[in-house]
């Protein structure tokens, strides 16, 4: 055992040294550097220029936190941010619950029309978002009209419409992620629990749920991010006076790019990174 390790070490060292110096090795290194630069330089620039004192946010003229201060003073932007968070939280909770239950049913039962329903579940993932948005808009107009003819009260688009729309497109994504973790879940564990006297409810909460929780968290995280940065559907379905952050950012950018935009983008980045970190932490603890 010890012999084997020392052997691999002595072999591995000259090999890696040769790779570093050879042309192929250099090309490989350059490739990796470029790839990561491609991914992260724009984000780094965004973060850096959220602290520049240059009012157009394109040159480094000195450090300032002014833009963050202005941001928090901007009631319109803050309102949009709160709306976005509210929509994201509610639609994530709802779509995660519905999606998890759907995934459980699809994984567990064999029933007529299952294959067709399965295909229909995945379709929303590949449907172009603009089509989805137009469809949801048309549907809401139709539904509001119908409701108005029944109740007599005019109904306007509001945050609830956006939430419902976000739930609608998030469910498919949650189902996909949760089903992956269910595929790796050993059904015999449920039999073992039943064998030890656990009823269906106890088996779910003590065995199934904790073991597929990483998948559920993954699905929820995806739903949350999708809702947070959704632009097209939010633009189409939010009513007057209920603006959401991506739409508000777009409106501001159309006039001028200011470091304020960089600042709010940096904060959103921070939030999503914090969420990913949190979910990693939760999963590692297990």
């Amino acid at each position, binding site marked *: 055992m010890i012999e084997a390790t020392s052997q691999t070490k002595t072999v591995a060292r000259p090999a890696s040294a040769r790779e570093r110096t050879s042309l192929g090795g250099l090309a490989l290194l350059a490739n990796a550097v470029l790839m990561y630069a491609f991914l992260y330089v724009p984000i780094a620039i965004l973060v850096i220029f959220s602290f520049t004192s240059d009012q157009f946010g394109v040159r480094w003229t000195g450090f300032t936190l002014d833009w963050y201060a202005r941001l928090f003073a901007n009631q319109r932007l803050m309102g949009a941010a709160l709306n976005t968070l509210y929509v994201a939280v509610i639609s994530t909770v709802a779509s995660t619950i519905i999606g998890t239950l759907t995934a459980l049913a699809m994984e567990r039962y064999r029933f007529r029309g299952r294959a067709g329903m399965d295909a229909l579940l995945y379709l929303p993932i590949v449907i172009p978002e603009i089509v989805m948005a137009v469809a949801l808009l048309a549907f809401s107009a139709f539904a509001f009209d119908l409701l108005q003819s029944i109740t007599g009260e005019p109904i306007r688009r509001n945050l609830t419409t956006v939430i419902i729309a976000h739930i609608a497109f998030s469910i498919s994504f949650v189902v996909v992620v949760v089903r992956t973790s269910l595929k790796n879940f*050993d059904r015999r564990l449920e*039999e*073992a*629990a*039943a*064998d030890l006297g*656990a009823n269906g409810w106890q088996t779910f909460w003590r065995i199934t749920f904790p*073991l597929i929780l990483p998948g559920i968290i993954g699905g929820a995280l995806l739903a949350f991010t999708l809702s947070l940065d959704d632009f097209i559907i939010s633009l189409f379905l939010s009513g007057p006076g209920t603006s959401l952050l991506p739409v508000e950012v777009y409106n501001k950018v159309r006039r001028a790019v200011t470091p304020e935009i960089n600042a709010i983008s940096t904060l959103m980045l921070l939030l999503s990174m914090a969420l990913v970190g949190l979910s990693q932490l939760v999963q590692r603890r*297990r």
Partner: protein
Amino acid sequence: MPLWLSVYAFQEIALSDGNAIELRDVVKAFGDVYAVDHVSLQIRDGEFFSLLGPSGCGKTTSLRMIAGFEYPTSGEIMIHGREMSSTPPHLRPVNTVFQSYALFPHMSVEQNVAFGLEMKGVAKADLGPRVQEALEMVRLTGYGARRPRQLSGGQQQRVALARALVNHPEVLLLDEPLGALDQKLRKEMQLELKGLQERVGITFIFVTHDQEEALTMSDRIAVMSHGKVLQVGTPTEIYERPSCRFVADFIGETNFVEGKVVESAGGYATIETADGIRLRGCSARPLSSGAAATLSIRPEKVRLLPQGEGSAGDENALPVRVERVNYIGSDTRITVRLSDQRTLNAWEQNDRSTVDRNAYWQPGEESLLVCPADNALVLTE
């Protein structure tokens, strides 16, 4: 024996008429396929009972029906006299040790073992001692805080045992629990399981496809094939008096010689092969003359006599030529060829230590294969 087990054993006897499990004409059909085909079995209290058969013979399905994971298509399953054919698994007084152990990976060993007690509503204060007692029983004291994946296969298997036994089941069901272990550990666990069963006195129903395992451990064995029970009996009954050709073939090794019955009387029958060789063997039932029959001779029950000893005219004596000799340590396994080109196997115990090649049979040697009628069996199915 711990006190709770003796109290339990007493209760058990009071409850039943001596049968821990009874299957009455049980059928399990999956579509057109009969996984279990009209099986009736009585498994006695405190018995180590094995369901033995090749894969797909219905032994695991039978076990799963006793556990409650499958419900019979028809027939009845009685557990200590109570009809439980359609009772869900969590309400049955039996526990299972799964082939893959099915330990809960997100729980510690202790939590795994305590799970059944918690589900029963055992008071928190009583959990600890009972879990410790169960871990002690399977010699895993001190492993309570570990996760299943930190244990070896043999240790996981013992956790699975403790997790089941801690609930004082009326019957313990074991689904090929030793299948994943290596040969040496397997042998150790066989003896350990048997010892444990004798200590706790709980009825064990053990599913296996390994005939040697079944013979080593069981009080009684049911041999299954194609959904049917072919024979139920003690290991010696199954091995020495197989009821049919399949059982004789599946349990251990044997030589078959086909022929027709020419005589049958007093517990013996004589068959004649197509080329006129007559062989006599035991027969449980009188057989009608002319019926097709097979003589079964275990390779360790024949003797090879050196040339000059015995005579070809003796009963069940066949002149043969040694064809192949395999030395396997404890035994020498010899394949001999009959005059009619048929081959038979004979095993000789190497009861003398020598490296002299001449002490063993050599290919090409002439010999007389002798098999006393009491060591042979005439089978008709």
